[in-house]
């Protein structure tokens, strides 16, 4: 694509369970920042069924134009039709910057789309900033599991990135904002698709979703067994929070894999994250470092987690958890 022809910032909005997923406000906020720095428009692509209200909501988040593909066949994310739509849109609109969330949709779709468009993609960005001299966007992301941070640029257009969840302040809503909703004609040719979803099971998570929880009690290998995880659940319950854990806890099958926190699990940003029997590996902390307060309980004073937590207790969790539970039960709620 010609550099000078490419204009505008576009992001793929995520529509889930009849509404906008949280990542959209974050995509709108960083998208708007870059669009303003470039002096260009911010657009969103919205794919789904029954999306009109959500399109309006995107406008209130700062989007100038919403390209709407409203089709009853688009109730769930499927890579092949999304790939077809997105590559067609990029061909027609020739955006300067293309953003996706680093979510289950963006992780699956982004790389294949980048290769189809023959461009580079910088995944899981934690910062994006336009450089005024070059007009290139500087894309910052963790590498080596977060041991180092890299700043990258891409030469081709669109400049494509996936945006790490919970890294950008969500855009505020302004319902007086005006924008344009453009329906994008797209016919699905099912016969061209090679993959078929034959079954799906939405894991049953009761109560609040881990990503949305304000308080998380998280356990690691140091918990020792599935039964003992129950005690952590008790604390989570008393505090009105959710349970989560490290990959070690998941690999041992003490927890389902959708409760894993970390670079290959969920990214969370609760008010309070209590890490118990977790060593604080960089891959784990990548998922929880945005927590306002991190409290670590670990019996090893040398554990890495004490380099990153705000409060720490060096103690065997088996000894300290029972009195904590006792006291918490007496606290007014």
């Amino acid at each position: 694509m010609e550099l000078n022809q490419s204009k505008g910032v576009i992001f793929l909005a995520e529509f889930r369970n009849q509404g906008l997923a949280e990542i959209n406000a974050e995509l709108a906020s960083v998208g708007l920042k870059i669009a303003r720095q470039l002096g260009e428009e911010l657009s969103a692509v919205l794919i789904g069924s029954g999306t009109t209200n959500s399109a309006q909501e995107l406008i209130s988040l700062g989007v100038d134009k919403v390209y709407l593909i409203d089709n009853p066949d688009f109730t769930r994310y499927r890579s092949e039709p999304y790939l077809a739509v997105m590559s067609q849109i990029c061909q027609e609109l020739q955006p300067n910057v293309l953003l996706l969330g680093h979510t289950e949709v963006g992780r699956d779709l982004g790389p294949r789309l980048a290769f189809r468009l023959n461009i580079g993609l910088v995944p899981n960005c934690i910062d994006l900033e336009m450089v005024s001299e070059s007009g290139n966007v500087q894309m910052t992301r963790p590498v080596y599991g977060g041991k180092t941070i890299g700043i990258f640029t891409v030469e081709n257009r669109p400049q494509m990135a996936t945006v790490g969840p919970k890294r950008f302040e969500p855009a505020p809503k302004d319902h007086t904002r005006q924008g344009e909703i453009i329906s994008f004609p797209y016919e699905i040719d099912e016969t061209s698709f090679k993959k078929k979803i034959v079954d799906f099971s939405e894991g049953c998570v009761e109560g609040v979703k881990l990503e949305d929880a304000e308080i998380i009690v998280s356990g690691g290998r140091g918990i020792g067994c599935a039964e003992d995880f129950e005690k952590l659940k008790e604390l989570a319950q008393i505090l009105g929070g959710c349970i989560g854990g490290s990959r070690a806890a998941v690999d041992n099958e003490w927890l389902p894999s959708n409760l894993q926190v970390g670079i290959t699990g969920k990214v969370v940003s609760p008010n309070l994250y209590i890490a118990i029997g977790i060593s604080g590996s960089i891959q784990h902390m990548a998922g929880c470092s945005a927590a306002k307060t991190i409290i670590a309980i670990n019996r090893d004073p040398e554990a890495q987690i004490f380099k990153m937590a705000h409060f720490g207790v060096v103690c065997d969790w088996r000894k300290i958890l029972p009195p904590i539970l006792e006291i918490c039960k007496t606290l007014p709620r």
Partner: protein
Amino acid sequence: MLNIVVCVKQVYDPEAPASLFQISSDGKKAIPPQGTPPVLSPFDENALEAALRIKDIQEAKIIVLSMGYKLAKPILKKTLAVGADELILLEDKQFEELDSYGTAHILACAIQQIKNFDIILCGRQAADTDAGQVGSGIAEILQIPDITLARKVEVSSDKVQVERLMGDGYETVETAMPVLITASNEIGDLRYPSMRKSLAAQKMGVTSWDSTQLGLETVADNRVKLQKLYLPERNSNCQLINGENPEEMAAKLTDVLAGVVK
């Protein structure tokens, strides 16, 4: 017989302590702590295990591909020790600092030379790049379907069924072969080789292809340019809560809790 290609990358042990990492003076290279051994990238071990489980129940040939420069053969021969049939190294000075775009093109080129392939397995992401791109890239170049984040793979006649992870559950996706699948750790840990097989593997020969043998006149330019690497700031103002006994520490800790939760 099924032909399975597994792409395995050699990386520095990702469990090496983060605080000892350094950056080269030009800001372009991460230097792991001295003595950090090279290992197989963990999710690539899961990919290999997925291939071996298929071979456990049906006739299959497993070819392992690894691209890089000055690769550690004894480490990569672990793939032969656990049951892979052939190891092909793609080694060339030009392959040293490729991004996902370049890497996928080299691997796809090698796979095209292998010709017979039904299933290509990759890790969901390499432990150094954390990019998760090369797998889908290979699939796009070869114009075959890709299924990411597999936790289970089943093969029946000319089809595969893959359970793939989603945020809150999983879905089962079916497609005809050839297909590219990226493996997540939920697929299971790589089996241990026996001592006898480990010794035998060290004696097995490996094939090496450089860019000329791959028939490449030029190596694809990187699409992504690294400007600079730096070390993250660490907030190490951890306030330790002390006490004579667990009860006292618990009391102090719940005071902190009450302050945060209110």
